[in-house]
Protein backbone atom coordinates (compact mmCIF):
# COMPACT_ATOMS: atom_id res chain seq x y z
CA UNK A 1 0.00 0.00 0.00
CA UNK A 2 2.87 2.38 0.89
CA UNK A 3 5.18 1.21 -1.88
CA UNK A 4 6.54 3.24 -4.77
CA UNK A 5 4.50 6.32 -5.63
CA UNK A 6 2.16 5.85 -8.55
CA UNK A 7 2.89 7.91 -11.64
CA UNK A 8 0.96 8.22 -14.83
CA UNK A 9 2.12 5.99 -17.67
CA UNK A 10 3.17 9.05 -19.67
CA UNK A 11 5.31 10.35 -16.82
CA UNK A 12 6.88 6.92 -16.39
CA UNK A 13 7.64 6.77 -20.09
CA UNK A 14 9.28 10.19 -20.00
CA UNK A 15 11.27 9.32 -16.89
CA UNK A 16 12.48 6.10 -18.49
CA UNK A 17 13.56 7.82 -21.72
CA UNK A 18 15.41 10.52 -19.83
CA UNK A 19 17.32 8.07 -17.67
CA UNK A 20 18.15 5.23 -20.04
CA UNK A 21 21.68 6.50 -20.58
CA UNK A 22 22.42 6.65 -16.86
CA UNK A 23 20.65 3.30 -16.46
CA UNK A 24 23.08 1.72 -18.92
CA UNK A 25 26.00 3.03 -16.86
CA UNK A 26 24.48 1.95 -13.54
CA UNK A 27 24.32 5.56 -12.37
CA UNK A 28 20.75 5.50 -11.07
CA UNK A 29 19.80 4.93 -7.46
CA UNK A 30 18.15 1.61 -6.56
CA UNK A 31 14.72 3.22 -6.49
CA UNK A 32 15.20 4.91 -9.87
CA UNK A 33 16.55 1.74 -11.46
CA UNK A 34 13.57 -0.19 -10.20
CA UNK A 35 11.23 2.41 -11.67
CA UNK A 36 12.97 2.19 -15.07
CA UNK A 37 12.96 -1.60 -14.98
CA UNK A 38 9.26 -1.80 -14.20
CA UNK A 39 8.48 0.51 -17.10
CA UNK A 40 10.75 -1.42 -19.46
CA UNK A 41 8.80 -4.57 -18.66
CA UNK A 42 5.65 -2.93 -20.01
CA UNK A 43 6.96 -0.68 -22.82
CA UNK A 44 8.39 -2.25 -25.95
CA UNK A 45 9.34 1.13 -27.45
CA UNK A 46 11.54 1.84 -24.48
CA UNK A 47 13.05 -1.63 -24.71
CA UNK A 48 14.02 -0.94 -28.34
CA UNK A 49 15.41 2.43 -27.31
CA UNK A 50 17.50 0.77 -24.62
CA UNK A 51 18.86 -1.81 -27.02
CA UNK A 52 19.79 0.78 -29.65
CA UNK A 53 21.53 2.94 -27.08
CA UNK A 54 23.43 -0.04 -25.69
CA UNK A 55 24.52 -0.94 -29.20
CA UNK A 56 25.63 2.66 -29.86
CA UNK A 57 27.70 2.71 -26.68
CA UNK A 58 29.20 -0.64 -27.57
CA UNK A 59 30.18 0.61 -31.05
CA UNK A 60 31.71 3.77 -29.57
CA UNK A 61 33.73 1.68 -27.12
CA UNK A 62 35.09 -0.34 -30.03
CA UNK A 63 36.77 2.74 -31.50
CA UNK A 64 40.52 2.39 -31.21
CA UNK A 65 42.61 5.06 -29.55
CA UNK A 66 44.21 7.35 -32.10
CA UNK A 67 47.98 6.84 -31.86
CA UNK A 68 50.11 9.88 -31.10
CA UNK A 69 51.98 10.97 -34.24
CA UNK A 70 55.13 11.84 -32.28
CA UNK A 71 56.55 12.03 -28.81
CA UNK A 72 55.32 14.87 -26.64
CA UNK A 73 58.19 14.64 -24.17
CA UNK A 74 59.15 18.02 -22.82
CA UNK A 75 62.62 19.34 -23.66
CA UNK A 76 65.31 19.55 -21.00
CA UNK A 77 65.40 23.30 -21.38
CA UNK A 78 61.89 23.62 -19.93
CA UNK A 79 62.06 25.70 -16.76
CA UNK A 80 61.45 23.83 -13.52
CA UNK A 81 57.84 23.76 -12.32
CA UNK A 82 56.91 26.84 -10.38
CA UNK A 83 53.65 28.49 -9.52
CA UNK A 84 53.18 31.83 -11.23
CA UNK A 85 52.86 34.74 -8.80
CA UNK A 86 49.13 34.95 -9.33
CA UNK A 87 48.71 31.37 -8.15
CA UNK A 88 50.64 31.95 -4.93
CA UNK A 89 48.38 31.90 -1.90
CA UNK A 90 49.51 35.37 -0.79
CA UNK A 91 48.58 37.01 -4.11
CA UNK A 92 44.86 36.89 -3.50
CA UNK A 93 45.20 37.91 0.13
CA UNK A 94 47.44 40.84 -0.74
CA UNK A 95 44.96 42.08 -3.31
CA UNK A 96 42.10 41.82 -0.85
CA UNK A 97 43.98 43.73 1.84
CA UNK A 98 45.00 46.41 -0.67
CA UNK A 99 41.41 46.70 -1.96
CA UNK A 100 40.09 47.05 1.59
CA UNK A 101 42.68 49.73 2.33
CA UNK A 102 41.78 51.65 -0.83
CA UNK A 103 38.08 51.41 0.01
CA UNK A 104 38.77 52.67 3.53
CA UNK A 105 40.82 55.55 2.17
CA UNK A 106 37.99 56.45 -0.20
CA UNK A 107 35.47 56.46 2.63
CA UNK A 108 37.77 58.59 4.78
CA UNK A 109 38.37 61.03 1.93
CA UNK A 110 34.66 61.33 1.15
CA UNK A 111 33.76 61.73 4.81
CA UNK A 112 36.54 64.24 5.36
CA UNK A 113 35.44 66.18 2.31
CA UNK A 114 31.83 66.19 3.46
CA UNK A 115 32.78 67.35 6.97
CA UNK A 116 34.97 70.10 5.58
CA UNK A 117 31.94 71.77 4.07
CA UNK A 118 30.89 72.55 0.53
CA UNK A 119 33.62 72.57 -2.00
CA UNK A 120 35.02 75.70 -3.46
CA UNK A 121 34.07 75.71 -7.07
CA UNK A 122 36.71 76.80 -9.44
CA UNK A 123 36.82 80.39 -10.41
CA UNK A 124 34.69 80.62 -13.46
CA UNK A 125 36.64 83.50 -14.90
CA UNK A 126 39.88 81.63 -14.75
CA UNK A 127 38.32 78.59 -16.34
CA UNK A 128 36.96 80.59 -19.20
CA UNK A 129 40.17 82.46 -19.64
CA UNK A 130 42.05 79.22 -19.87
CA UNK A 131 39.73 77.96 -22.51
CA UNK A 132 39.87 81.22 -24.38
CA UNK A 133 43.62 81.38 -24.16
CA UNK A 134 44.14 77.92 -25.66
CA UNK A 135 46.09 78.14 -28.88
CA UNK A 136 43.69 75.85 -30.65
CA UNK A 137 41.09 78.54 -30.35
CA UNK A 138 43.17 80.56 -32.70
CA UNK A 139 43.50 77.59 -34.97
CA UNK A 140 39.77 77.36 -35.03
CA UNK A 141 39.39 80.99 -35.84
CA UNK A 142 38.84 80.48 -39.58
CA UNK A 143 35.81 78.43 -38.71
CA UNK A 144 33.54 81.07 -37.40
CA UNK A 145 35.62 83.72 -35.75
CA UNK A 146 38.03 85.46 -38.03
CA UNK A 147 39.26 87.42 -35.06
CA UNK A 148 38.60 87.12 -31.39
CA UNK A 149 35.63 89.14 -30.39
CA UNK A 150 36.22 92.58 -29.19
CA UNK A 151 35.06 91.79 -25.73
CA UNK A 152 37.70 89.13 -25.39
CA UNK A 153 40.42 91.37 -26.66
CA UNK A 154 39.39 94.18 -24.44
CA UNK A 155 38.96 92.11 -21.35
CA UNK A 156 41.61 89.51 -21.74
CA UNK A 157 44.27 91.64 -20.18
CA UNK A 158 42.69 92.93 -17.02
CA UNK A 159 40.83 89.76 -16.19
CA UNK A 160 43.43 87.29 -14.89
CA UNK A 161 44.14 88.98 -11.63
CA UNK A 162 40.58 88.90 -10.47
CA UNK A 163 39.64 85.72 -12.23
CA UNK A 164 42.48 83.68 -10.81
CA UNK A 165 41.20 84.25 -7.35
CA UNK A 166 38.68 81.82 -5.88
CA UNK A 167 35.06 82.79 -5.66
CA UNK A 168 35.40 84.43 -2.32
CA UNK A 169 38.15 86.72 -3.47
CA UNK A 170 36.30 87.49 -6.62
CA UNK A 171 33.20 88.54 -4.74
CA UNK A 172 35.30 90.86 -2.66
CA UNK A 173 36.74 92.45 -5.72
CA UNK A 174 33.43 92.78 -7.49
CA UNK A 175 30.61 95.03 -6.50
CA UNK A 176 27.94 92.38 -6.83
CA UNK A 177 27.60 88.67 -7.36
CA UNK A 178 25.30 89.11 -10.32
CA UNK A 179 27.96 89.12 -12.99
CA UNK A 180 29.35 85.92 -11.59
CA UNK A 181 25.96 84.29 -11.75
CA UNK A 182 25.67 85.47 -15.28
CA UNK A 183 29.01 84.05 -16.10
CA UNK A 184 28.13 80.66 -14.72
CA UNK A 185 24.86 80.73 -16.54
CA UNK A 186 26.37 81.35 -19.94
CA UNK A 187 29.31 79.08 -19.33
CA UNK A 188 27.86 76.01 -21.01
CA UNK A 189 30.14 74.29 -23.05
CA UNK A 190 31.43 74.75 -26.43
CA UNK A 191 30.48 71.78 -28.49
CA UNK A 192 32.76 71.52 -31.45
CA UNK A 193 35.38 68.96 -30.69
CA UNK A 194 39.01 69.20 -31.63
CA UNK A 195 38.36 66.68 -34.38
CA UNK A 196 35.66 68.82 -35.92
CA UNK A 197 37.89 71.85 -35.70
CA UNK A 198 40.65 69.99 -37.48
CA UNK A 199 38.23 68.92 -40.16
CA UNK A 200 37.01 72.43 -40.55
CA UNK A 201 40.47 73.90 -40.87
CA UNK A 202 41.43 71.21 -43.31
CA UNK A 203 38.52 72.09 -45.53
CA UNK A 204 39.37 73.62 -48.89
CA UNK A 205 39.90 77.30 -48.73
CA UNK A 206 37.91 77.95 -51.86
CA UNK A 207 35.41 80.67 -52.10
CA UNK A 208 32.51 78.38 -51.38
CA UNK A 209 33.78 77.19 -48.04
CA UNK A 210 34.97 80.55 -46.94
CA UNK A 211 31.75 82.18 -47.89
CA UNK A 212 29.76 79.60 -46.05
CA UNK A 213 31.78 80.15 -42.94
CA UNK A 214 31.35 83.85 -43.04
CA UNK A 215 27.71 83.58 -43.92
CA UNK A 216 26.82 81.34 -41.11
CA UNK A 217 29.10 82.19 -38.27
CA UNK A 218 30.50 85.62 -38.64
CA UNK A 219 30.87 86.88 -35.14
CA UNK A 220 29.89 90.40 -34.61
CA UNK A 221 30.19 92.74 -31.77
CA UNK A 222 26.42 93.06 -31.92
CA UNK A 223 26.03 90.31 -29.47
CA UNK A 224 22.69 88.94 -28.29
CA UNK A 225 20.85 91.19 -25.92
CA UNK A 226 21.93 89.67 -22.67
CA UNK A 227 25.49 89.11 -23.64
CA UNK A 228 25.94 92.50 -25.18
CA UNK A 229 24.45 94.18 -22.17
CA UNK A 230 26.85 92.34 -19.94
CA UNK A 231 29.75 92.94 -22.21
CA UNK A 232 29.01 96.61 -22.30
CA UNK A 233 28.64 96.69 -18.62
CA UNK A 234 31.94 95.05 -18.06
CA UNK A 235 33.80 97.27 -20.43
CA UNK A 236 32.85 100.23 -18.35
CA UNK A 237 33.04 98.67 -14.93
CA UNK A 238 35.33 95.65 -14.91
CA UNK A 239 33.46 92.49 -14.20
CA UNK A 240 35.84 89.93 -15.61
CA UNK A 241 33.85 86.76 -15.14
CA UNK A 242 30.74 87.86 -16.95
CA UNK A 243 32.61 89.65 -19.66
CA UNK A 244 34.99 86.84 -20.30
CA UNK A 245 32.20 84.34 -20.39
CA UNK A 246 30.45 86.46 -22.93
CA UNK A 247 33.65 86.71 -24.89
CA UNK A 248 34.17 82.96 -24.87
CA UNK A 249 30.88 82.46 -26.58
CA UNK A 250 31.04 83.66 -30.14
CA UNK A 251 28.64 86.47 -30.42
CA UNK A 252 26.12 86.19 -33.16
CA UNK A 253 23.09 88.08 -34.18
CA UNK A 254 20.53 85.43 -34.63
CA UNK A 255 20.67 82.58 -32.17
CA UNK A 256 19.22 83.16 -28.79
CA UNK A 257 21.54 82.89 -25.87
CA UNK A 258 22.83 79.43 -25.23
CA UNK A 259 21.00 77.81 -28.10
CA UNK A 260 23.01 76.00 -30.71
CA UNK A 261 22.36 76.85 -34.29
CA UNK A 262 21.76 74.11 -36.74
CA UNK A 263 24.67 72.51 -38.52
CA UNK A 264 25.21 73.91 -41.95
CA UNK A 265 26.62 72.07 -44.93
CA UNK A 266 29.12 74.04 -46.91
CA UNK A 267 28.06 74.69 -50.47
CA UNK A 268 31.46 73.49 -51.60
CA UNK A 269 30.32 69.99 -50.81
CA UNK A 270 33.27 69.31 -48.54
CA UNK A 271 30.92 68.18 -45.83
CA UNK A 272 32.17 70.81 -43.45
CA UNK A 273 30.03 71.23 -40.44
CA UNK A 274 29.92 74.46 -38.66
CA UNK A 275 28.30 74.94 -35.32
CA UNK A 276 27.99 78.40 -34.10
CA UNK A 277 26.81 79.56 -30.78
CA UNK A 278 29.52 77.49 -29.12
CA UNK A 279 33.21 77.96 -28.77
CA UNK A 280 35.64 75.23 -29.65
CA UNK A 281 37.13 73.52 -26.65
CA UNK A 282 40.20 71.33 -26.86
CA UNK A 283 40.48 68.27 -24.69
CA UNK A 284 43.25 69.84 -22.68
CA UNK A 285 40.74 72.40 -21.49
CA UNK A 286 38.47 69.58 -20.34
CA UNK A 287 41.31 67.97 -18.43
CA UNK A 288 42.27 71.28 -16.88
CA UNK A 289 38.68 71.86 -15.86
CA UNK A 290 38.44 68.39 -14.34
CA UNK A 291 41.63 68.97 -12.42
CA UNK A 292 40.35 72.23 -11.11
CA UNK A 293 37.01 70.74 -10.23
CA UNK A 294 38.65 67.95 -8.24
CA UNK A 295 41.04 70.39 -6.63
CA UNK A 296 38.14 72.63 -5.74
CA UNK A 297 36.73 70.14 -3.28
CA UNK A 298 38.33 69.47 0.05
CA UNK A 299 40.03 66.06 0.02
CA UNK A 300 39.20 65.88 -3.69
CA UNK A 301 42.52 64.48 -4.78
CA UNK A 302 42.50 61.89 -2.01
CA UNK A 303 39.03 60.72 -3.01
CA UNK A 304 39.85 60.62 -6.72
CA UNK A 305 43.15 58.84 -6.14
CA UNK A 306 41.71 56.21 -3.83
CA UNK A 307 38.75 55.62 -6.19
CA UNK A 308 41.13 55.04 -9.08
CA UNK A 309 43.28 52.75 -6.96
CA UNK A 310 40.22 50.79 -5.84
CA UNK A 311 39.05 50.40 -9.42
CA UNK A 312 42.49 49.17 -10.45
CA UNK A 313 42.66 46.68 -7.59
CA UNK A 314 39.17 45.34 -8.29
CA UNK A 315 40.06 44.88 -11.95
CA UNK A 316 43.19 43.00 -10.92
CA UNK A 317 41.14 40.82 -8.58
CA UNK A 318 38.73 39.90 -11.38
CA UNK A 319 41.64 39.14 -13.70
CA UNK A 320 43.27 36.99 -11.04
CA UNK A 321 40.06 35.10 -10.43
CA UNK A 322 39.65 34.37 -14.12
CA UNK A 323 43.25 33.20 -14.41
CA UNK A 324 42.96 30.95 -11.38
CA UNK A 325 39.70 29.46 -12.60
CA UNK A 326 41.45 28.28 -15.75
CA UNK A 327 44.36 26.87 -13.82
CA UNK A 328 44.06 23.09 -13.34
Amino acid at each position, binding site marked *: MWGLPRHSEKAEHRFCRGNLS*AFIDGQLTGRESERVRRHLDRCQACQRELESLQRTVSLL*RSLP*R*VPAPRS*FAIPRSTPA*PALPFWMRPWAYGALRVASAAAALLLVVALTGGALAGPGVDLAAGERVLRIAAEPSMEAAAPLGTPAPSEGMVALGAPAPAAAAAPNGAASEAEPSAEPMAGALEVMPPPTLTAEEAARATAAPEGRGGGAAATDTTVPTVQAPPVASARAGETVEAPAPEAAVAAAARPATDEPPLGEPKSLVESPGGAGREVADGYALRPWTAGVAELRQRIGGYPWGWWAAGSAMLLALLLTMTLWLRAKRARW*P
Partner: protein
Amino acid sequence: MDEQTLVATARAGNHEAFNVLVRNYEGMAYSVAYRVLGQPEAAADATQDAFLAAYRALPAFRGGSFRAWLLRIVTNACYDQLRVAKRRPQTALDNVSEDPDYALALADRGETPEESLLRHELAQILEVGIAKLPVGQRLVLVLSDVEGLSYDEIVAVTGLSLGTVKSRLSRARGKMRDHLTGEREPWGL
Protein backbone atom coordinates in the same frame (compact mmCIF):
# COMPACT_ATOMS: atom_id res chain seq x y z
CA MET B 1 58.27 3.78 -9.78
CA ASP B 2 54.59 4.39 -9.13
CA GLU B 3 52.69 7.38 -10.39
CA GLN B 4 52.70 9.37 -7.15
CA THR B 5 56.47 9.01 -6.86
CA LEU B 6 56.90 10.07 -10.48
CA VAL B 7 54.75 13.13 -9.88
CA ALA B 8 56.69 14.06 -6.74
CA THR B 9 60.02 13.62 -8.52
CA ALA B 10 58.85 15.63 -11.53
CA ARG B 11 57.59 18.37 -9.27
CA ALA B 12 61.12 18.77 -7.93
CA GLY B 13 62.23 19.61 -11.47
CA ASN B 14 63.13 16.16 -12.81
CA HIS B 15 62.37 16.17 -16.55
CA GLU B 16 62.92 12.45 -16.94
CA ALA B 17 60.34 11.56 -14.34
CA PHE B 18 57.82 13.80 -16.03
CA ASN B 19 58.61 12.36 -19.45
CA VAL B 20 57.78 8.91 -18.09
CA LEU B 21 54.37 10.29 -17.24
CA VAL B 22 54.18 11.85 -20.71
CA ARG B 23 54.86 8.48 -22.33
CA ASN B 24 52.18 6.86 -20.19
CA TYR B 25 49.51 9.40 -21.05
CA GLU B 26 50.36 10.91 -24.42
CA GLY B 27 48.25 8.39 -26.34
CA MET B 28 45.17 9.13 -24.27
CA ALA B 29 45.80 12.89 -24.31
CA TYR B 30 46.31 13.03 -28.07
CA SER B 31 43.34 10.76 -28.75
CA VAL B 32 41.01 12.95 -26.70
CA ALA B 33 42.37 16.11 -28.31
CA TYR B 34 42.06 14.57 -31.77
CA ARG B 35 38.43 13.61 -31.28
CA VAL B 36 37.48 16.89 -29.69
CA LEU B 37 39.25 19.00 -32.30
CA GLY B 38 38.97 16.70 -35.33
CA GLN B 39 42.32 17.74 -36.78
CA PRO B 40 45.71 16.07 -36.27
CA GLU B 41 47.77 19.28 -36.27
CA ALA B 42 45.54 21.10 -33.84
CA ALA B 43 45.37 18.01 -31.64
CA ALA B 44 49.19 17.71 -31.59
CA ASP B 45 49.52 21.40 -30.70
CA ALA B 46 46.95 21.09 -27.93
CA THR B 47 48.65 17.97 -26.53
CA GLN B 48 52.10 19.58 -26.51
CA ASP B 49 50.72 22.73 -24.91
CA ALA B 50 48.92 20.64 -22.33
CA PHE B 51 52.02 18.70 -21.29
CA LEU B 52 54.09 21.86 -20.98
CA ALA B 53 51.32 23.52 -18.97
CA ALA B 54 51.01 20.42 -16.79
CA TYR B 55 54.73 20.43 -16.06
CA ARG B 56 54.64 24.09 -15.06
CA ALA B 57 51.51 23.55 -12.98
CA LEU B 58 52.75 20.47 -11.13
CA PRO B 59 53.06 22.37 -7.83
CA ALA B 60 49.31 22.99 -8.04
CA PHE B 61 48.53 19.26 -8.26
CA ARG B 62 47.12 18.31 -4.86
CA GLY B 63 46.87 14.57 -5.31
CA GLY B 64 43.92 12.54 -6.52
CA SER B 65 43.63 11.24 -10.05
CA PHE B 66 46.57 12.41 -12.12
CA ARG B 67 44.78 11.24 -15.24
CA ALA B 68 41.76 13.46 -14.54
CA TRP B 69 44.01 16.40 -13.67
CA LEU B 70 45.97 15.98 -16.89
CA LEU B 71 42.83 15.60 -18.98
CA ARG B 72 41.50 18.82 -17.51
CA ILE B 73 44.59 20.59 -18.83
CA VAL B 74 44.18 18.85 -22.19
CA THR B 75 40.57 19.97 -22.31
CA ASN B 76 41.56 23.57 -21.60
CA ALA B 77 44.19 23.38 -24.32
CA CYS B 78 41.54 22.07 -26.73
CA TYR B 79 39.25 24.97 -25.93
CA ASP B 80 42.17 27.33 -26.55
CA GLN B 81 42.74 25.70 -29.94
CA LEU B 82 39.05 26.00 -30.78
CA ARG B 83 39.19 29.68 -29.93
CA VAL B 84 42.19 30.10 -32.22
CA ALA B 85 40.47 28.12 -34.97
CA LYS B 86 37.43 30.37 -34.78
CA ARG B 87 39.59 33.27 -35.91
CA ARG B 88 41.08 31.32 -38.80
CA PRO B 89 39.44 29.57 -41.72
CA GLN B 90 39.51 25.87 -41.05
CA THR B 91 39.06 22.68 -42.97
CA ALA B 92 36.09 20.38 -42.61
CA LEU B 93 36.00 18.02 -39.67
CA ASP B 94 34.52 15.08 -41.53
CA ASN B 95 37.70 13.65 -42.99
CA VAL B 96 39.06 12.38 -39.72
CA SER B 97 39.74 8.82 -40.83
CA GLU B 98 41.99 10.03 -43.63
CA ASP B 99 44.76 10.52 -41.10
CA PRO B 100 47.35 7.82 -42.00
CA ASP B 101 48.23 7.19 -38.36
CA TYR B 102 44.61 6.58 -37.58
CA ALA B 103 44.17 4.31 -40.60
CA LEU B 104 47.13 2.28 -39.41
CA ALA B 105 45.58 1.98 -35.98
CA LEU B 106 42.39 0.61 -37.54
CA ALA B 107 44.28 -2.11 -39.41
CA ASP B 108 43.90 -5.56 -37.91
CA ARG B 109 45.65 -8.43 -39.61
CA GLY B 110 43.47 -11.06 -37.96
CA GLU B 111 40.30 -10.16 -39.85
CA THR B 112 39.05 -10.70 -43.36
CA PRO B 113 39.17 -7.83 -45.91
CA GLU B 114 35.38 -7.51 -45.70
CA GLU B 115 35.50 -7.22 -41.94
CA SER B 116 38.32 -4.74 -42.16
CA LEU B 117 36.42 -2.64 -44.69
CA LEU B 118 33.31 -2.65 -42.54
CA ARG B 119 35.32 -1.64 -39.49
CA HIS B 120 36.92 1.21 -41.39
CA GLU B 121 33.58 2.38 -42.63
CA LEU B 122 32.02 2.14 -39.19
CA ALA B 123 34.93 4.04 -37.62
CA GLN B 124 34.57 6.78 -40.19
CA ILE B 125 30.83 7.06 -39.59
CA LEU B 126 31.36 7.20 -35.85
CA GLU B 127 34.07 9.85 -36.14
CA VAL B 128 31.85 11.98 -38.36
CA GLY B 129 28.99 11.57 -35.90
CA ILE B 130 31.25 12.62 -33.02
CA ALA B 131 32.51 15.62 -34.98
CA LYS B 132 28.94 16.76 -35.59
CA LEU B 133 28.12 16.95 -31.89
CA PRO B 134 28.29 20.25 -30.02
CA VAL B 135 31.69 20.51 -28.39
CA GLY B 136 30.36 20.13 -24.84
CA GLN B 137 28.52 16.90 -25.66
CA ARG B 138 31.43 15.70 -27.78
CA LEU B 139 33.86 16.03 -24.92
CA VAL B 140 31.65 14.17 -22.46
CA LEU B 141 30.93 11.40 -24.97
CA VAL B 142 34.61 10.92 -25.82
CA LEU B 143 35.63 10.86 -22.17
CA SER B 144 32.90 8.43 -21.22
CA ASP B 145 32.33 6.07 -24.12
CA VAL B 146 35.65 6.19 -25.96
CA GLU B 147 38.11 6.67 -23.11
CA GLY B 148 36.00 4.90 -20.49
CA LEU B 149 36.18 7.49 -17.70
CA SER B 150 33.74 7.23 -14.83
CA TYR B 151 31.13 9.92 -14.20
CA ASP B 152 33.11 11.22 -11.23
CA GLU B 153 36.25 11.54 -13.33
CA ILE B 154 34.32 13.37 -16.04
CA VAL B 155 33.02 15.76 -13.39
CA ALA B 156 36.62 16.33 -12.25
CA VAL B 157 37.86 16.85 -15.81
CA THR B 158 35.14 19.15 -17.06
CA GLY B 159 34.19 20.92 -13.86
CA LEU B 160 30.51 20.31 -14.70
CA SER B 161 27.92 19.05 -12.25
CA LEU B 162 27.00 15.38 -12.23
CA GLY B 163 23.51 16.18 -13.53
CA THR B 164 24.92 18.14 -16.45
CA VAL B 165 27.30 15.34 -17.31
CA LYS B 166 24.44 12.84 -17.28
CA SER B 167 22.19 14.95 -19.45
CA ARG B 168 24.93 15.84 -21.94
CA LEU B 169 25.92 12.21 -22.26
CA SER B 170 22.32 11.16 -22.72
CA ARG B 171 21.79 13.72 -25.48
CA ALA B 172 25.09 12.86 -27.15
CA ARG B 173 24.30 9.16 -27.19
CA GLY B 174 20.85 9.84 -28.58
CA LYS B 175 22.32 11.91 -31.40
CA MET B 176 24.94 9.29 -32.15
CA ARG B 177 22.23 6.63 -32.29
CA ASP B 178 20.22 8.79 -34.67
CA HIS B 179 23.34 9.36 -36.77
CA LEU B 180 24.00 5.62 -37.00
CA THR B 181 20.41 4.70 -37.80
CA GLY B 182 20.38 7.33 -40.54
CA GLU B 183 23.22 5.58 -42.35
CA ARG B 184 22.85 3.19 -45.26
CA GLU B 185 24.02 0.32 -43.08
CA PRO B 186 22.08 0.46 -39.77
CA TRP B 187 24.92 -1.28 -37.84
CA GLY B 188 22.61 -3.55 -35.94
CA LEU B 189 20.49 -0.71 -34.54
